[in-house]
C-alpha cells in the first residue's frame, strides 16, 4: 500500500515536472541529409560539434554520447544500424559482412581469432560489453 502511494506521488511529481519542462524534442530526422562520416562542426557551433565522426577518438567516445543523448544519434541512425555491431546474437563479424567498406572502424578485422588470444589477455574488459552477456555462444566452442 505504501509502495503504491509512493509510486503514485512520484508519478504525479514527474508528470508536473515534465509538463513544466516545455522543451522542443530533438528532430526525429536530421533536417539535412548527411553522407559519409559527418563533420558536425561544418554546420554546428553548439554542443553537437562534439559528435564529429571524423575525429580519431570518436569510436572510443561514442558510447558516452549514446548513453547521454541517444535521441541525437537517432536523427541519422535507426536501431538496425546499432545492431550491426551491438548484436544480441550474431554469426558474422561486421568486418566480414562489409568488406566493401574498408574506411569504417569495424571491430575484429583480419584473422582476429589468432589476435584475440593476445588482446583478450591485455584488455579483457573491452570484450565484456559485447560478449559478456550477449553474443557469447561461439566462445563455448573453445572456452569450455
Amino acid at each position: 500500500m505504501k509502495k503504491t502511494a509512493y509510486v503514485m506521488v512520484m508519478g504525479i511529481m514527474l508528470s508536473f515536472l515534465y509538463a513544466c519542462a516545455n522543451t522542443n524534442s530533438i528532430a526525429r530526422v536530421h533536417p539535412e541529409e548527411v553522407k559519409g562520416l559527418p563533420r558536425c562542426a561544418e554546420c554546428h557551433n553548439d554542443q553537437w560539434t562534439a559528435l564529429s565522426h571524423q575525429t580519431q577518438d570518436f569510436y572510443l567516445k561514442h558510447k558516452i554520447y549514446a548513453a547521454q543523448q541517444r535521441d541525437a544519434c537517432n536523427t541519422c541512425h535507426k536501431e538496425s544500424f546499432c545492431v550491426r555491431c551491438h548484436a544480441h546474437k550474431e554469426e558474422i563479424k561486421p568486418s566480414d559482412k562489409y568488406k566493401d567498406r574498408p574506411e569504417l572502424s569495424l571491430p575484429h578485422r583480419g584473422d582476429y581469432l589468432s589476435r584475440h588470444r593476445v588482446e583478450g589477455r591485455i584488455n579483457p574488459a573491452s570484450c565484456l560489453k559485447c560478449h559478456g552477456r550477449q553474443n557469447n555462444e561461439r566462445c563455448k566452442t573453445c572456452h569450455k
Partner: protein
Amino acid sequence: MKIKERKTTPAPPGARKAVASILLGCSLVILGHQSADATAINGSSETILRMREGVFDDHLFPLYEYLNLAASDSAGPGTISLEIGGWGRVDLGDRSFEHRTEGDVQYGFLSYRANRGNFTANAGRQWVVEGVATERIDGLYLRTDLLGGFTAAAYVGNPAVIQTDFNGGDLIYGGRLAHTMPKYYSLGISALRTETSGEGIREEEGVDLWLHPVAMLDVTGRSTYNSLTRGWMEHAYTASFTPTDALHVSASLQNVHYEDYFYQVTTNTLSLTNGFIAPGEEMWNVGGSVGFNATKNIGLSAEYNHYEYDLAGGADYYGVTGNFGTTTGFAAGASFHRMDGSNDRLRYNQYRAWATQKFGPADLTLDFFDVDFDGSISGRENTFSLAAAAGYDFSRNLRVAADVDYIRSADFDNELRGLIRLSYAFGVGKEGKQ
C-alpha cells in the same frame, strides 16, 4: 548459480512481446494514421551467402537473411513507430553451426515519442543505453525532459541475455537522472539492478559526464560502482582538445578492477572462475592520440596506450594511421600498430593497407591485413588476410557486393572465403538510415 541444463521454452517472453508489438504497431500505423504525409514505412533487407571450408574439410554455404522494418506515424502530438529487426540462416551445404537453421530477433519494439519534452516510451525488445546500462531488455523504457534542465529515464523488463553458462537474471530495472546545460555540460547519475527470483545478482551505480567548458575542449567519461562487491568497477575518461579544425588531440584514462567488473557474466569465458580472468587484477590504461588533417584529402593519426597491471606484466600499444581520398572516388589507407606485451606471446606487429575506387555505380576494394607475432600462435608466427571486394549499385536502393578473402591463419594454411551480399532498401517516407 551455474546452469546444469539449458532450459528451452516454446516462446520466450521477448518473442511474445515482439509479436504483440508488431500486431499493435501495425494496427496503429495502418488503421490509426490520419495523413499519408505523416506516415513512413521503410525497411532494409540483406541477403548474404557465405562460402568457406570448415576445419574438417566440410563445405559451408550458410545463407542469411537480415531484415529490418520500421513504420512510423507522426500525425498526432507525437510519433508512434514500430521497429523490428532480425536474421535467419539456413545451411545450403554442410552444417556450419550447431543447428542447420538458426535465427534471432535482435530488436522489436513499439515506440511513442512526443513532439515536446523529448518524452519517449518504448515497449518490446530493445537496446537500452542509459548511463551504466548498456543492456538489451524485453520490457519498457521511458525517458523525458523535466523542469530546469533535468532529464530522467527509467526501464524495467526481462534481460535479453545469452545464458551459455550462468543465469542472467529474470528481472532488470534501473534509471538515470541527469542535468544538462546544452552548451556546457551534461552530468548524470544512474543505477541498474538485475534479479533472479528476487535476489540481486547485479547492482551497479555510476556517474557519467560530458564537459564542454570552452569550445576547444570536450571531456567525456563515467565511473561505475558495484554495490554487491562494494568496489569500483571502472573509471574511464577521455579529454579531447581541438585547437584548430585540422588538429585533434585526445588523452584517455581507464581503470578496471576485475573482481568488480567481471562479477556477473553469463559466459564462462569471461567469468572470474575460469582461471583466465584473475579476480585480484587491476588494470590502468593511460593513452593518447593525435589526429591531423594535413589537407582536405589527407588525414594522419598516431596513438599510444600503456597498460599497467597489479598481477600481470604491463603492455604498450601504439601505432600510426594515414588516410587519403580524392574527389574522383579513390580512397586509401595504411596503418602500422605494435602490441608490446610482457612476453613474446603477447607481442605483435600489425600492418594494414587498403584502397577503394569508384567507377560510377561500381566500386572495387582491396584490403590487406597482416599480423606478425613475436611468438607463435598454434605454431604460426605470421597471419594475414587479403580481401578483394566489388560492389555495384543498381539504384539508390539496390546494391550487390561480393568479396573473396584469402587467409593464412593459425587454423588454416591457405583458406579461401567468399561472400555475396544483396542489399535492398525499400519504403515510403524518410526516417533515418537503415
